[in-house]
């Protein structure tokens, strides 16, 4: 008995909500990036669920591309965090309110 697609979508929605909460509520840059990764994964899960429901593989190929883009984005995001940390010794995004660096 296959699992209905709706179940996967509910899981994806919950994960997306948790990731959004993480992005909105946390002050550490690393935690925000983690929340973004979680949201991307939730989207991937929904894509894969729909791909399975339609019976073709386009959704899964799209997930593959999203994974590659997420990897690129994490690399650049963490590089930015490291550069900021070196300047100001803090990754607290509330302190990054001075544009004059």
């Amino acid at each position, binding site marked *: *008995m296959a699992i209905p697609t709706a179940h996967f979508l509910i899981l994806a929605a919950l994960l997306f*909500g*948790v990731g*959004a909460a993480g992005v909105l509520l946390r002050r550490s840059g690393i935690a925000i990036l983690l*929340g973004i990764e979680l949201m991307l994964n939730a989207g991937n899960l929904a894509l*894969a669920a729909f791909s399975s429901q339609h019976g*073709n593989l386009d959704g899964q190929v799209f997930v593959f591309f999203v994974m590659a883009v997420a990897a690129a984005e994490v690399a650049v995001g963490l590089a930015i965090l490291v550069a900021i940390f070196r300047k100001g010794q803090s990754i607290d995004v509330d302190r990054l309110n001075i544009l004059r660096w």
Partner: protein
Amino acid sequence: MVTAVFLVAAILAVVSAIVAVSHRDPVFNVLSLVVTFFCVAVNYALLGAHFLAAAQILVYAGAILVLFLFVIMLLGAPQTGGDEVKRPVQKSAGLALAAIVAVGGALLALTLKIAPAEAVPAANTQAIGRLLITTYGFAFELISVLLLAAMVGALVLVKRKH
């Protein structure tokens, strides 16, 4: 049996996601996220997307989160907290928004008319490979250029000026 696996994976995914965004120690956040990604990989396998499950562990859990751990350890696991300005209004607004998104999405999924699932073609890895090279060949090449750009960008950003 399959439903039991799905339930365990789903509950574990949500619980470890909550731990991942709420714990104050960054290393624990990353480790809980590893568990979450594992459960998502299990879900991919349940959907018949075996290549995606392997790629999820290989790329997300095995590379991206390792990069997170490197940065956390190089930065000395900075834990933000302490003498900050408390912003309860923004916090509750953010929490409410996230809750609306989660619950709304779940309700939408329940009420949407979704046709019953059709079987995904077998020989998953080969079929995806064929699609990547033929139908989505241009996007594939673009992704490699994007990864190159990201690599160069990351190197330029952290280069020390001597």
